[in-house]
């Protein structure tokens, strides 16, 4: 009995060892991609080549798969390519991405290369991505030219080791702050108020909404949670839900550990207690908020003015914008929503084109990625097809009604944005002029400009990148912290922690911060600081 057991265990162990060796097939040496671009052969487009591309779908246009997209078809035709898109199921994008890496079942191009733990740089050093840095001047000349033309953009796209490892979609100018407070104009008229400016005004207006108009959801919270657009209210207190830096000293801070954060929580808790925020806010969905708004049950929500114009009604009659609230009139905010030139954080989709090591036609893959930076490609991705979706008027592209006409497009405007043009992807994004909804509602330009001008961005962290080890520290400790903070703030707001009283706030505050320290927030701040330092040291010149 004993003997055969020993034999079996030896057998299993040796099998396990041999399997583990088998699994550890050596990655390609990263040095393979050290080439002199001047000696590379020209791109030969005579042969038709198939490229597989992994790309998640946009959540609000899940039926607009990219093989139906007119512009990708055109790119394929012009460059003599066959494009095969692989779309992960909506809602499982990150899981599918991770599985793809684990199984090493790689397509030629991945549009979300920034999702690799540790970023593009680690993806290259682990042999999953090709290092395209040395090939770019030859095979993606337009991308290279436009990227290097602006040192600020170049800095955002450069990795910490000085290489450009991916083809990033970027904007060549700073985009507007795209979301902010949207007030119910009819409700404001009914209570005889203007759009509020300070937190105090907000409190008064919400009180009237609740008490005079009987609204059951005066302040609608975005379903993505407090962390999302309610940044707007936290910013009045100089805090944030994530990392910020001190505008003066450049020191990195964690928003929820700041003094202002507790004041902010107290404010929201008060609003919840007074019934301005519905008890069901944890399960609200976005369309319910819109319906409540139209039914005069909601007085204010944070949203994008294009959505408001498309879904709620007429500007100035049904809805009106308000500035971001401040504590005292004339305060200058330093935190707001901002799209960087290069959107490299993990929540950015389809902005980072990387070529994987299973790609056999590196030149053709880069040729395709480069198309979004040629004059023709920029027009096509941003505006669609000339004479169909847009016309040139005085040298400027002007959208026709094509995209809005459901009878022709056979779909709603949101899906049409992903079928007859592209909303985001690997190209020079010209959001200010290339969003047909902005063109249709020109007053929105003024709204977004006001929000943009109202706040500085000195407290925001630039798109820094972490090394794998740093990423691991963040994943391990910071996941615990964000989970803890989220649970605590929800409990605090809904009054499950303790009764509202000043002493309760004080104990909550001290235990909360003691726990944050215990969970290693200081180590994490150190990691973020060093990543920020590396970012600041990146050479912006070639």
């Amino acid at each position, binding site marked *: 009995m004993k*003997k*055969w057991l020993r034999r079996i265990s030896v057998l*299993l162990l040796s*099998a*396990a*060892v041999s*399997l*583990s*060796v088998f*699994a*550890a*097939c*050596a*990655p390609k040496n990263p040095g393979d991609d050290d080439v002199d671009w001047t000696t590379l052969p020209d791109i030969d487009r005579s042969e038709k080549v198939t490229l597989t591309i992994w790309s998640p779908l946009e959540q609000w246009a899940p039926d607009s798969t990219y093989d139906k997209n007119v512009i990708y078809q055109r790119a394929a035709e012009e460059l003599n390519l066959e494009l095969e898109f692989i779309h992960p199921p909506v809602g499982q994008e*990150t*899981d599918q991405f*991770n599985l793809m*890496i*684990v199984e*090493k079942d790689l397509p030629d191009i991945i549009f979300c290369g920034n999702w690799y*733990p540790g970023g593009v740089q680690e*993806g290259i050093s*682990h*042999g*999953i991505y090709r290092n395209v840095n040395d090939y770019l001047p030859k095979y993606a000349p337009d991308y290279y030219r436009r990227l290097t033309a602006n040192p600020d953009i170049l800095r955002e796209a450069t990795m910490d080791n000085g290489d450009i490892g991916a083809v990033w979609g970027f904007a060549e100018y700073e985009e507007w702050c795209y979301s902010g407070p949207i007030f119910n104009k009819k409700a404001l008229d009914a209570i005889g108020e203007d759009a509020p400016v300070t937190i105090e005004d907000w409190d008064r207006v919400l009180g009237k909404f609740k008490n005079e108009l009987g609204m059951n959801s005066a302040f609608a919270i975005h379903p993505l949670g407090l962390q999302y657009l309610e940044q707007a209210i936290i910013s009045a207190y100089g805090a944030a839900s994530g990392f910020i830096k001190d505008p003066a000293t450049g020191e990195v801070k964690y928003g929820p550990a700041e003094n202002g954060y507790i004041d902010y929580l107290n404010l929201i808790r008060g609003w919840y207690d007074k019934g301005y925020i*519905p*008890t*069901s806010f*944890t*399960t609200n969905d976005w369309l319910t908020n819109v319906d409540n708004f139209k039914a005069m049950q909601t007085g204010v929500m944070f949203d994008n003015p294009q959505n408001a114009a498309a879904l709620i009604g007429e500007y100035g009659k049904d809805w009106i914008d308000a500035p971001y609230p401040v504590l005292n009139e004339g305060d200058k905010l330093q935190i707001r929503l901002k799209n960087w030139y290069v959107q490299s954080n993990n929540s950015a989709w389809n902005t980072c084109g990387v070529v994987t090591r299973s790609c056999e036609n590196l030149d053709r893959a880069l040729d395709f990625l480069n198309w979004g930076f040629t004059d023709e490609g920029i027009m096509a991705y941003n505006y669609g097809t000339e004479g169909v979706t847009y016309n040139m008027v005085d040298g400027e592209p002007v959208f026709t009604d094509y995209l809005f006409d459901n009878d022709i497009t056979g779909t709603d405007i949101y899906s049409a944005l992903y079928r007859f043009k592209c909303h985001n992807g690997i190209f020079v994004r010209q959001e200010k002029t290339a969003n047909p909804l902005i063109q249709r509602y020109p007053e929105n330009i003024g709204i977004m400009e006001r929000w943009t001008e109202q706040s500085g961005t000195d407290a925001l962290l630039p798109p820094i990148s972490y090394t*794998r080890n740093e990423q*691991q520290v963040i*994943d*391990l400790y910071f*996941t*615990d912290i964000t*989970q*803890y903070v*989220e*649970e605590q703030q*929800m*409990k605090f707001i*809904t009054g*499950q922690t303790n009764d509202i009283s000043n002493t309760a706030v004080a104990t909550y505050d001290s235990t909360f911060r003691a*726990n944050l320290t*215990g*969970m290693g927030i200081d180590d994490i701040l150190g990691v973020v600081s060093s990543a920020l330092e590396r970012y600041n040291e990146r050479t912006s010149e070639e």
Partner: protein
Amino acid sequence: MNKNSYFARLKIDIKRKKVEYLLFLPVLIYFIIFCYVPLYGIFMAFFDYVPALGFAGSEYVGFQWFSLFFDSIFFGRIMYNTIMLNVYSIIFVFPAPILFALLLYEIKTKAVVKTAQILTYLPVFISLVVVCGIIVDFCKVDGLISNIMATITGEAAKDLLDDANYYFPIYLISDIWQNMGFSSIVFYAALCRVDQDLYDAAKIDGAGRFRQLISVTIPSILPIITVMFIIRMGSMLNVGFEKAYLLKRPLNAERSEVIATFVYDRGLKGNNYGYGTAVGLFSAVINFAFLWVTNFFAKKTENGLW
């Protein structure tokens, strides 16, 4: 090779019972492919595992992940939730199908039994995602159960899933509702095989209906109950991942976070395969310990599994 060695005897046996071994082959292959081959993945628990580099390129970190898990501020509550949910489940959910089978067995009208069985089996065929959707809807502020609760307690209706105190009852009651009927099949089948002569003998001895239950029915199905109990104890640290994950929210995480959801969040979603595997391995070891201890005691009553 020794003539009496295991393999020699196995060889003779295979020659003798070719067809039987052929039938057994698929089972063997299944276990090798799906249960033994993946075992090498356990090594991940001791590595800082990078999928792209494999084991050879990953750094050996010893017991780092284990100590990290034990130090986590969530460790206490995860263990509490996982164990307590199982304890409650053994107290309330495990006996439910047995009681149900006993009740069914007492009903002698065929039509009633059949109808009751079909009605109680049905929920098990509903996808867990749908069941959780129903639970979420019923427990909403304007949901059915929330409002019944509000009427009983006289307080304003609230979202029951937003209160950690309600999480265990919601979990267990819905579990009973969904699985009681189906799990009772095995007990009901065991009951149907009880020798009717035993009842006749008991009746002659003057046993009433309740006395028959105590002295005949329950002892007859005790072996089945024991076996099911041992198997149940072997998953002491398992809480179905899907249900916990679908019902989990920040406001009820105090009670809803269990080992399985933690492994998923940190391991698969957080890309830390080593950490996830370490936590998984830890719970597997504890499960095995429970299984072994239960079996040890069950053997004393001669109902052991092995």
